Every structure is written in structure tokens, then in C-alpha cells.
């Protein structure tokens, strides 16, 4: 932590942190202009702008990562902060009971296992296979747990975000294809399978959908992050 702060105070630290912050503000503005379309997720625009900056100033990515290590370090505390939304959803969880848990469990197991199976069939390297297991949970938890099971955190972040975008973009088509009209069910599926990006889409669909999506996001996030390292620790 002290090291991260020291780097942030150095000249290149201040420079790249400011560039990151400005890029993010531009990304937020662009997202608003696109009416919050999932494909215009702020992180994509931010990453593109910073890449452009790195390219123009002929800076290595590793150099940027060192300069901006404060941002990366904050991922740990922000993971802990997720306790707040989970705490706030607790009453609702009890209200909906086992049906909600069963739905989230199905989505929480089906999404990573089917994705992993695809990679297994195609015989991709095992680090990529393991990383894919964390694709349906919120980014900070996915990065932590993929590191724990021998996956690649950077790749986990990308898989997670792309999964969220795909889920949010495909939601309406998929729901009409599977004949799902229940708004409750749509919310649960979006939060469970497409985490925070799916939840952002659910917020646009209405408050009732958003509440269920948040439940899916929280419950699946905790259980997957808890289950992955334990299963790997015990059996592999």
C-alpha cells in the first residue's frame, strides 16, 4: 500500500493517474451520449483512450501499471466494500426464499461450466480454461478467485466484462426466444449470468427487474468466489 502511494506521488504516477481519471470522465460522458448502451461500457472507452495515450507517448503497459498501481491496489478494499450491497439485499433474499436460490444456483453453475466445457473441448491452455470459470461474477471477485485457482486475473477482467456486455445485448432476443415474460425471472438471469453489466441493463428495464438482478449479482458473486478456490483446493 505504501509503495502504491509512493508511486502515485511520483511524477509519472500523478501524470498517468490524471490521464486515467480524465479518460474515465470522457468515457462516462460517452456512455451517457449512447444512452447507457451496454457496448459503450465506460471501461472500454477508458481502456482505449489510455492505450492511445500509451501508444502516443511510447510507454510500455507495464510502466503504466507501475505508475497507476494505486488504482489496482484499491481493487482489494473495493471487493470488501461489496459487503454493503449484499447486506442491503439480505431481507429480500429471505423474502423470496429457496426459489430464488435455486434459480441463482442453476445460472451460477450453468454459465461457467458450459463455458469451461467449450474451452475444454477445444483443448485451450488450462490457465485460460480456469480463468473462464470466473466469467459470470463481478470483476473484483473474478480477479481474486481466478488468481487463486491458477487463472489469469487480467484475462478474467476482460472475460467478465465481455460476458456482461454479451448478456446485456442479447437479453431481449434471448428472453423472447425462450419465451420468458416474467420480469422477475429476467432480472434474476441478468444479474446471475451477466453480473454488474447485466444489472445496469436491468436498471433500464425497471426497478423490479433491477432488484432481482442485484440479488443474482450478489449471491452468485459470493458463492462462485467461495466455491472456486475451495473446490480447486480440495480436488485439484
Amino acid at each position: 500500500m505504501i509503495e502504491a502511494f509512493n508511486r502515485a506521488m511520483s511524477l509519472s504516477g500523478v501524470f498517468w493517474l490524471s490521464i486515467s481519471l480524465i479518460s474515465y470522465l470522457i468515457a462516462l460522458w460517452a456512455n451517457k451520449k449512447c444512452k447507457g448502451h451496454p457496448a459503450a461500457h465506460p471501461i472500454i472507452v477508458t481502456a482505449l483512450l489510455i492505450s492511445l495515450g500509451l501508444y502516443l507517448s511510447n510507454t510500455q503497459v507495464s510502466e503504466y501499471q507501475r505508475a497507476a498501481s494505486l488504482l489496482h491496489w484499491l481493487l482489494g478494499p473495493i471487493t470488501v466494500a461489496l459487503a454493503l450491497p449484499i447486506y442491503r439485499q439480505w431481507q429480500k433474499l429471505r423474502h423470496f426464499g429457496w426459489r430464488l436460490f435455486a434459480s441463482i444456483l442453476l445460472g451460477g453453475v450453468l454459465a461457467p461450466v458450459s463455458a469451461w466445457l467449450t474451452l475444454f473441448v477445444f483443448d485451450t491452455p488450462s490457465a485460460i480454461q480456469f480463468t473462464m470459470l470466473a466469467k459470470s461474477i463481478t470483476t473484483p471477485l473474478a480477479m481474486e478467485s481466478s488468481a487463486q485457482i491458477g487463472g489469469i486475473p487480467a484475462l478474467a477482467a476482460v472475460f467478465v466484462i465481455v460476458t456482461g456486455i454479451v448478456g446485456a445485448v442479447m437479453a431481449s432476443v434471448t428472453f423472447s426466444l425462450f419465451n420468458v415474460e416474467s420480469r422477475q425471472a429476467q432480472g434474476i438471469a441478468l444479474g446471475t449470468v451477466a453480473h454488474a453489466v447485466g444489472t445496469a441493463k436491468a436498471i433500464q428495464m425497471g426497478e423490479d427487474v433491477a432488484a432481482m438482478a442485484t440479488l443474482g449479482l450478489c449471491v452468485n458473486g459470493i458463492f462462485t468466489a467461495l466455491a472456486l478456490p475451495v473446490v480447486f483446493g480440495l480436488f485439484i
Partner: protein
Amino acid sequence: MQNVKDVFIGAASVFAAYYLGLLIVSATSLFIPGPLLGLFILLGALFCLPQLESCVARAVTVPLKHMSLLFVPAVLGVSAYWGDIKSNALAIIIAIVITTSFSLGITAWFSQRLFNSKKTKAIANTKSNGHLDD
């Protein structure tokens, strides 16, 4: 002034839970990530001290809303794995696009059936109750 104090208490509890989580995991070599244990510690603290909620909320609401910014250094690090991604592109695209859509549909369909069965049961119950009341 009170707000500043709340933010300070909220942030201090988050960091305390974070470091406690890291400490316990490194001391006991548990399987789970330290920050996840920290999350559970903070969750436990919120259940024991509900008045902590407003302080924590003041400290973390804005960072949580903008946490995307924190992933940027990690996401840029993916360029190091570009070769791996390219050589497995087809499998990765199928794994993300097809299985995500499929899982989304199945989960929603299953959950709709579960909740509908509850509704029909509730309707059946009110009907039979109504009958008894007659």
C-alpha cells in the same frame, strides 16, 4: 463535520476488514482470497452493528459506482496474453457469446417456471380457501 467523521469511520472499517482478511488468510493458508474473507468480516460487522451501515454507505457508495476505473490497469495487462487469445479466439468467442446467451435463457426460463408454480399454488390455495369459506 459529522459527515466527515462518518466517511472516516466507514473507510476505516472497510480497510480494517480488508487487512484482517489478508492477515487471517496468510496466517491460516485458507483457500479463499483475503479480500473475500474481508467482505465476510465487514458483512458480519454490519449485522452486529447495524448503525455502521450509514457510515460505510457514505464511504463506499461513490467508489462502488465508479469501480470500473480500478480495473483499467488490469485490463490493459491483457495485451501480454494477446497471442494466447488470438490462437484460441474461436473457442473463447463460443464460450463467451453462445454459452452466456444460452445460460441467460435457461436460467430465466427455469426461474419463471419455479415462480409460476408458486403462483398457481397460491391461486389454488386461495380458491380452496374461498371454497371452505363458502
